[in-house]
């Protein structure tokens, strides 16, 4: 480069240059009209996606075996939410970046006991069902180890059954009350009463869907539906949207890392990708101060296109 590379360059004040008439307000008004018209045309032609949410009743009707398996898994403590860790429970420490365990440090701030909150409490609210009441009573009066043995045995039997069909599981005393609890849970879900029992928590109004979504996510049905719509994490995940819509392409860099190693195979991928994105974000903010990066515009002559009239007159 020239001698100017040996010292700090100075950028002249913009107000020292010759000027020409420029109507900022007119430019803005024209831009506003153009954008409003373009938006209206795009909205009229392409509309917007609104695929209905999956209700727990839908789930129970379309994938009953998955509901039963999920209920058994919650009772056995083998589902994702049961072994999640903070902020829901202490079943695991969660993800970490080497010695930095932010997930653990944040603590359990949204307590969820998967067996109790997602299965037993909703079932306990059902009235007029003696068989269910007896099963709940048997479950609640048993020791924790016994509960786990029953639920694990039943969950394993479901896994071994064709299509996980509960009807194909041979009854056994080793399952305790779990088959009844799981069957009644399916019945409650099918009737449409589960959402309210999970998330209303005695409140007339519902706004927090944490428990319902944790339960739905513990099953296979939600992910199956998402993958069928190319929304899986290894399909660029949340960057996409249902239907042929642009979704959130501005998140491409975030979703990109999940597609490549070591992130795609790491148990701490979420924490690692977040940390990497924080570093890159800080880098973008501090571009003016990063040697080399701030010089890229000088090396890549795009600016000579932008200011071609100026440079033409200079030469």
């Amino acid at each position, binding site marked *: 480069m020239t001698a100017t590379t040996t010292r700090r360059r100075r950028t002249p004040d913009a107000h020292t240059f010759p000027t020409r008439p420029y109507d900022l307000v007119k430019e803005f008004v024209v*831009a506003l009209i153009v954008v409003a018209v373009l938006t209206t045309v795009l909205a009229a032609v392409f509309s917007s996606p609104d695929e*209905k949410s999956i209700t727990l009743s839908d789930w129970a009707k379309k994938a009953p075996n998955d509901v039963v398996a999920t209920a058994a898994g919650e009772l056995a403590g083998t589902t994702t939410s049961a072994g999640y860790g903070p902020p829901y429970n202490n079943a695991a420490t969660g993800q970490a970046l080497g010695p930095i365990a932010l*997930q653990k440090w944040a603590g359990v701030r*949204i307590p969820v006991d998967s067996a109790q909150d997602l299965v037993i409490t909703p079932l306990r609210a059902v009235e007029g069902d003696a068989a269910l009441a007896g099963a709940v009573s048997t479950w609640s009066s048993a020791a924790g180890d016994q509960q786990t043995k029953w639920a694990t045995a039943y969950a394993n039997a479901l896994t071994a059954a064709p299509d996980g069909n509960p009807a194909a599981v041979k009854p056994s005393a080793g399952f305790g009350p779990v088959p009844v609890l799981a069957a009644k849970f399916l019945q409650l879900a099918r009737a449409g009463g589960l959402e309210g029992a999970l998330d209303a928590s005695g409140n007339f109004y519902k706004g927090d869907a*944490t428990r319902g979504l944790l339960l739905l996510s513990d099953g296979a049905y939600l992910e199956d539906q998402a993958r069928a719509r190319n929304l899986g994490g290894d399909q660029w995940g949340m960057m996409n949207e249902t239907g042929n819509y642009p979704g959130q392409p*501005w998140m491409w860099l975030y979703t990109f890392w999940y597609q490549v190693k070591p992130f795609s195979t790491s148990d701490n991928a979420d924490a690692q990708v977040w940390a990497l994105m924080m570093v890159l974000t800080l880098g973008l903010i501090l571009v003016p101060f990063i040697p080399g990066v*701030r010089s890229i*515009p000088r090396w890549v002559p795009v600016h000579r296109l932008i*200011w071609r009239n100026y440079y033409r007159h200079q030469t």
Partner: protein
Amino acid sequence: MTSFVSRVASGEHSDPAKSNWTAALRTRLGRTVPAGQLLPDRQPAYVSSWIYVFGVLTLAALLVVLASGAVLALGGATWWHTSSTGHFVNSLHLWSVELFFAFMVIHLWGKFFMAAWRGRRALTWMTGVVAFLGSIGTAFTGYLSQSNFDSQWIGSQAKDGLNAVGIGAWFNVLDPGQMLMWHIALLPAAVGVLVVLHIVLVRRHGVVPPIDADAPHDGPSHDDPGSAS
């Protein structure tokens, strides 16, 4: 004893720049954007490229986003699921957001290749980037507030990322009520403040001159905190 009225009449008062917060704020605001530069009717002659349009287009799209979002808010959180009019307004909101981001990304890349942070404009660049990040957060919470299948899936996926770094304990993406508040109140307010600050800074320093441009005549120039070296 001198009455208040007589003291006012005699002009007795201390130096407003030192003791009067209002006058001090007025003076500070006056210094922030030089007289005539808030809405100038002339620009430097080098301001002659289509790339300049994308900043204004971004701002225009933001207004359409806010306007369509305000109409959606009038109808309530579930209006657009049950009304064809509401659905159309939602479509306006979606596509104005898509245009907003498209214009903003082009604007950002344009300013990058102009090295627009030169000449004490680093803060202008930084406020723009943070406004971009805030916009991503705002759009993201919008997707979480749709109360449809997309929201269910995006929330169930996003919780893992946020929980992994401890954020999910306070920012619960499985709580559409909380996310709606972030989407329509907290984040738009933050983005709005950043955009205003960004525009004020742009007007304060004027449009960055071409790379390696020499001042055409004597005038002030600035040390360049972000220059290439």
